[in-house]
């Protein structure tokens, strides 16, 4: 029995305790989760709050938030603690608040959060959230405090959408590849809007896009659409050039636009007006995301049939200019060749035409430049500047450059041909073909062989090494030497004769004087004087080396003076010689003395001259 009673007693206690405990739990401790709404818009923020209530709030520890995998936490956890004393009973609560934003559309569950309290673990209830497109019509829930949330506006997204939208329009839906399409983005509004904020720019896959004009300021004009007046502004004007064929589309343009909306009064609640604060009538700002329509373009390929080989994809209307900076150069001097294509069309997608260079020229990679002009029709110019270096002299032809494009106005291919150039290349300084690399086959060829064998002779023999050369040298030299010797001998011979005469002079004079003496004895006056003058002049002739034909008394006297014969002797000679000549041609009559004295005088003079010349 005792055992029984013990059992019963224990059961009673346990039951009592359990009752007590459970009441305590259910009454004093709770851990709940709540959200600001079960339906939220994709772009909306909402709050999730986990609240723990209990007597001793400080006993709560280690709060663990659930995993918000489908939502993006923007802030939290923000803690707040409340204390309430009702009839002496103290109750406290602590809440953890998160602000979340949905990531995607759909229905999601936020899992349980946990806390430990006095060794026990409490779990919160899971919350179900439905994420809807745009701004969800919020269920009117909660009191005044919740109503202040800006998200819980009473202007529907649909309503805004009717009054504020972006329209993209293309000027054509059917184009050829490379043809220009103009796309305009316009903003239509009947609402007050604040500054625009681009959230997504359109993308143009399969196009080369170029903005026609960059819009700096948005200017609104009035336009009526479907009987409603809108303020309209052009946001963007883009020119598109398809680079592919087929159905191409342009992704929408998205703008985030803050809209000022007037709050509607809640007519169903008479107290609202009373409780509403006086500022509730001021406009509220609502963020609205405006998305443009998607443009679809059907792109067709260009006609294949008569596309020329020089067609490189240019579509539009173009002109070409080809220039060379000079037409006559020297070898190794660079020439600049400029190809410029200008006009309207897909200028950036153009490949510049190639051209052939004449043999003997080197072509370097061109310097290219683009110049784009914006406007209703996109155009501009594309320039390539080639550097050509002639390596060989001659007249060289640069053939004409061909450029083909598809003329969109005429709907046909059009080929432009430039003029050709004739370059006059003169031989410049320095060797030709000095550049490295492969040498081109030239038109220049070697000269023909020589047919005159006149210069072929035995190897290594120079003219001056031959015997004949030296013989030829010696012959004139020998002649010259012979001439010299001959001349010398002749000179010597003539000088010897003079010497002989010189040596003989005295002897001859003596001989003649002796004959004269005979005539003196026989008193033959005429013959005496003749012989005497002969002796005197003959002596002078021989002694002084004067030829008989050239002899005059004056010559002889001059010569004597030159040979340093004393003046009185020369004087005496002159007197005697004159006297002798005079008497010889004008004889006197028989006076003996002058003959004798003349004879003595002549002998004395000859002896004296002989002495002074010795």
């Amino acid at each position, binding site marked *: 029995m005792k055992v029984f009673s013990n059992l019963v007693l224990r059961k009673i206690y346990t039951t009592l305790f359990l009752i007590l405990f459970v009441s305590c739990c259910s009454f004093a401790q709770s851990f709940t989760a709540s959200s600001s709404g079960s339906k939220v818009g994709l772009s909306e923020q909402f709050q999730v709050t986990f609240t723990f209530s209990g007597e001793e709030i400080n006993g709560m520890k280690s709060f663990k938030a659930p995993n918000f995998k489908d939502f993006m936490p923007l802030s939290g956890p923000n803690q707040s603690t409340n204390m309430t004393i009702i009839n002496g009973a103290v109750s406290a609560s602590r809440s953890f608040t998160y602000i979340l934003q949905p990531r995607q559309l759909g229905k999601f569950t936020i899992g349980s959060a946990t806390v430990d309290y006095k060794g026990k673990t409490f779990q919160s209830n899971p919350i179900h959230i439905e994420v809807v497109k745009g701004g969800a019509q919020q269920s009117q829930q909660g009191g005044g405090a919740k109503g202040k949330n800006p998200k819980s506006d009473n202007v529907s997204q649909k309503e805004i959408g009717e009054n504020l939208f972006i329209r993209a329009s293309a000027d054509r839906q059917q184009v050829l590849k490379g043809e220009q399409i103009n796309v305009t983005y316009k903003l239509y509004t009947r609402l007050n809007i604040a500054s625009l904020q681009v959230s997504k720019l359109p993308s143009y896959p399969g196009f080369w896009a170029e903005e026609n004009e960059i819009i700096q300021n948005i200017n609104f004009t009035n336009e009526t659409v479907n009987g409603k007046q809108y303020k309209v502004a052009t946001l963007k004007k883009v020119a598109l050039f398809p680079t592919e064929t087929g159905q191409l589309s342009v992704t929408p343009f998205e703008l985030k636009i803050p809209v000022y909306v007037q709050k509607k009064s809640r007519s169903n609640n008479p107290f609202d007006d009373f409780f509403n604060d006086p500022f509730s009538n001021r406009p509220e700002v609502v963020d609205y995301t405006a998305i443009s329509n998607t443009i679809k373009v059907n792109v067709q390929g260009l006609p294949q049939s008569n596309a020329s080989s020089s067609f490189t994809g240019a579509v539009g209307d173009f002109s070409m200019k080809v220039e060379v900076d000079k037409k006559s150069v020297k070898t190794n001097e660079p020439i600049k060749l400029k190809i410029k294509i200008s006009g309207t069309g897909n200028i950036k997608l153009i490949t510049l035409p190639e051209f052939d260079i004449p043999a003997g020229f080197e072509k370097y990679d061109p310097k290219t430049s683009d110049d784009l002009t914006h406007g209703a029709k996109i155009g501009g110019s594309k320039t390539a500047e080639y550097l050509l270096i002639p390596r060989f002299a001659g007249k060289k032809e640069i053939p004409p450059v061909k450029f083909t494009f598809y003329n969109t106005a005429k709907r046909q291919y059009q080929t432009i041909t430039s003029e050709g150039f004739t370059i006059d290349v003169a031989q410049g300084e320095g*060797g*030709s*073909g*000095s*550049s*490295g*690399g492969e*040498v081109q086959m*030239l038109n*220049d*060829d*070697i*000269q*023909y*062989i*020589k*047919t*005159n*064998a*006149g*210069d*072929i*002779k*035995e*190897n*290594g023999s*120079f*003219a*001056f090494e031959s015997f*004949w*050369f030296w*013989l*030829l*040298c010696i012959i*004139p*030299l020998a*002649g*010259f030497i012979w*001439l*010299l010797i001959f*001349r010398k001998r002749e000179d010597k011979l003539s000088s010897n004769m003079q010497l002989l005469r010189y040596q003989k002079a005295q002897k001859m004079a003596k001989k003649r004087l002796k004959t004269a003496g005979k005539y003196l004895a026989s008193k033959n006056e005429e013959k005496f004087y003749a012989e005497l003058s002969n002796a005197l002049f003959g002596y002078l002739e021989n002694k002084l080396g004067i030829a008989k034909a050239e002899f005059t008394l004056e010559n002889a006297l001059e010569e004597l003076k030159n040979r340093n014969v004393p003046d009185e002797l020369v004087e005496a000679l002159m007197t005697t010689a004159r006297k002798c000549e005079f008497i010889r041609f004008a004889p006197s009559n028989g006076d003996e003395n002058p003959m004798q004295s003349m004879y003595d005088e002549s002998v004395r003079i000859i002896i004296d001259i002989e002495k002074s010349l010795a």
Partner: protein
Amino acid sequence: MNVMKKILLILFVCSLYSVKLSAFNADSSFAKGNEFYQKKDYAKAAASYKSALDAGYAGASLYYNLGNAYFRDGKIGYAILFYEKAAKLSPNDKDIEHNLKIANLRTIDKVAPMPPFILFRLWDKTILLFSVAGWTTLSFALYLIILISAGVYFTSHVSSYQRVSFLTGIITLLLFAGSVFFLWQRVEYQQNRSKGIIVVQTSVAKLAPDVQSKDSFVIHEGIKVVIEDKVNDWLRIRLQDGKIGWIAVNNLAVI
């Protein structure tokens, strides 16, 4: 006078005979070569010209024609070699100059030559103004003028004749000295064997005259090099751009 006439006659006959004797063989080989060349049988033409060379004859036209035959036969190295040889004998020949230029364009390597110093170029130009025969003739003419003016000077008793002949003699003597000097230089130039042409298709220049030595550079047929030294079967060569290496003797032919 009679003796003089006899001597001249003998000299004339001798000279005629000697020319006849030396030109006989070479002339026919030359003509035969030209015939083959005309028939576009360039290998045979080259062989024919070569036979004249081997017989010990030389001449700018022979070298030139042989160069042409080699050129047409595709042997650029030998073509350049013989053009260079022809140019050495006849430096101012436009045909030789032209063909040498064309042949040089066909070589694989392009070695940029260093531009020579202007004075050296001027010096070379003066030396190459005349051939050896030209300088010899000039010297001989000046020599005759010297003899004549000396003869006049020593035999004439008229003083004005003496003055003129003396002046002429002195000036001519100076010119003669210059002419002989240039003749000597010209002969030196012609006998200069310090330059060569690579005649094999590819030649590997080594850093040292040794087969095991490291390679310095590779040159191809037709390149003109300066020979600086010789060790056994190796030649030390210098390229026109200054590179130096050793190559085997048989890779090169001296100009």
